[in-house]
């Protein structure tokens, strides 16, 4: 164990692989020292596990109606109570975690690479390419995100898939800005020139040498944006524009519980608490990642 630690913390690593392992070790050590970041990692980890094992974890079916059990307060049988159709709210929240995770992952998978590529291309080529791409980016950045997402859903039609597309369309500009800024810092450095002299094509330089260096700051930003994405998705669900019934989407569940908020408070309150916990988890995790991976950005949100 001590020899492994010595190997990881060596001042002069013998190989690239040892240096990378050592860096990963140092980063995870720093990360583990930040209690809030660890809490965030645990919350996000639990979300992933719950989403994967939802059918085994949920005590009841998320869509199984039981009208004799409608609007029951939280009890030993139904920990979080039941809704207006007698469905177990805990089971619905557990299954709803799949939808939340799906939205978050899909938005990240669509918008992060899109933003990365646009930003890296703009920064790498410079000149008119840069000017035009960044003008488009700035237009998107200077518009209200939620309203644009609403307008896109209005044109595309309500539904989970369209909600994901609408959110992704409004999320990418921030990543393009970051990728461009990162690219500019090493655009003229010698290793890029070296690769170019070896005859690498522009595609190859951007794909293999520019993009990988932009990834860590993008990951931080994506994680920090997750809370906002979850809130926007829940907002679309609340308006009836996201996932459609009987899907147990958390925002839609709050919307249905709205009519009972005064007497059966748990119907709307419980999914809201789930949203808050998961969003806070992503905030903590993002803050922690930023402190560890990119100390320059601290407090700059």
């Amino acid at each position, binding site marked *: 164990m001590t020899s492994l630690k010595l190997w990881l913390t060596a001042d002069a690593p013998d190989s690239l692989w040892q240096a990378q392992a050592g860096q990963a070790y140092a980063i995870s050590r720093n990360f583990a020292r930040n209690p809030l970041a660890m809490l965030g990692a645990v919350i996000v980890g639990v979300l992933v596990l719950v989403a994967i094992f939802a059918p085994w974890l949920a005590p009841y079916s998320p869509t199984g109606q039981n009208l004799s059990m409608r609007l029951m307060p939280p009890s030993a049988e139904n920990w979080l109570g039941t809704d207006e159709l007698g469905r177990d709210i805990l089971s619905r929240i557990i299954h709803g975690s799949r939808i939340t995770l799906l939205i978050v992952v899909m938005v990240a998978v669509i918008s992060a690479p899109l933003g990365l590529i646009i930003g890296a291309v703009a920064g790498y080529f410079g000149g008119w390419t840069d000017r035009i791409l960044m003008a488009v980016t700035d*237009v998107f950045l200077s518009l209200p995100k939620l*309203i644009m997402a609403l307008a896109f859903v209005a*044109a595309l039609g309500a539904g989970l898939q369209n909600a994901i597309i609408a959110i992704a369309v409004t999320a990418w500009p921030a990543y393009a800005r970051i990728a461009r800024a990162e690219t500019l810092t090493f655009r003229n450095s010698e290793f890029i020139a070296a690769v170019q002299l070896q005859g690498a094509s522009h595609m190859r330089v951007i794909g293999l040498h520019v993009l990988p260096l932009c990834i860590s700051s993008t990951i931080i930003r994506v994680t920090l944006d997750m809370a906002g994405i979850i*809130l926007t998705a829940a907002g679309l669900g609340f308006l009836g524009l996201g996932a459609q019934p009987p899907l147990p989407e958390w925002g839609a569940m709050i919307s249905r*519980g709205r009519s009972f*908020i005064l007497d059966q408070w748990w119907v709307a309150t419980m999914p*809201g608490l789930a949203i808050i916990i998961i*969003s806070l988890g992503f905030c903590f995790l993002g803050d922690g990642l930023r402190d560890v991976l990119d100390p320059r950005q601290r407090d700059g949100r």
Partner: protein
Amino acid sequence: MIAPTLDSILRRGSLLVAGSRTALRFGFVTAMTFLGLLAITFFIGRVVPIDPVVAVVGDRASQAVYDATFIEMGLDRPLVEQFALYVRDVVTGDFGISLSTGRPVMDDLIRFFPATFEMATFGILIGVLLGVPMGVVAAANAGSWLDQMIRVLGLLGYAVPAFWMGLVALAVFYAGLGWTAGPGRIDIFYDGLVPTITGLLTVDAIIAGDWVVLKSALSHLVLPSAILGFFSLAYIARMTRSFMLDQLQQEFVTTARVKGASEWAVIWKHAFYPIRVHLITVIGLSYAVLLEGSVMVEIVFSWPGIGNYLTTALLSADMNAVLGATILIGTVFIVINRTSDVLYHIFDPRSR
């Protein structure tokens, strides 16, 4: 004797030129952003829907109406020409007819906007009046439990859905404790008692001198504004704290301390003074974001503003109204952001 005067005149002249050049650049960027907004709404309205005419007139319109709208929207012309016509219409305030209200969208927007403006403005007032002192206090006591509490409060601003908070607040403060009035802008029996002059109910009530109406309006306003204020407070407090932390480490602050200034004077006179400029941008941005957030809050509080208008239009597939409201909110958003940029530019000589 003449030389320095001439020199100073020349310098003033070049400053003027630089100033007008900046103004030109700001104007150009603003115009381009606005054009971008129109391009996006044009794209959403004309290119994304399978049949843009149906998106405007609905699927139960007769063939004659359909054909007339087809020509009116210029769909028989090339896309570029369509866009030029679209820009002309929007700039002259013609957003078409709303499918659900049957009135021009522009008239609807003018009718509904004051309610949103009133709520958002009270919200930003709450956010600034509480958020700035909280950020300063947090920075002055960095690391203390007070700082931690303010930090957690700030993070909650990123994690709590506004509509959920509105529901819970209604359940607690209206239904439970009875401290505030419920949804809507005013109690139903006071509705229409004061003449509409500005459209801002509180201002109209003051003009009419009707204190009962004012009280009712305020009691309806306080809850949604406080919720909006909470979300801007979270951001404002966080940013104020980080600006203040920077300033408190500066040498002039130490100098002030050494010269025996009281802690209060050090913090509020010396350290706070330079960050006012940064705060302009922060407050401008939060105000813009808050206008956007008001959409969700308006729905929960049945507030008759743009947000409610927009969502009603969304659910009835009333495309002209949706895009009209989007353009209005987008334009206000751009204007606020640009104004805070310009103010920053004016107040901070270093950025020139």
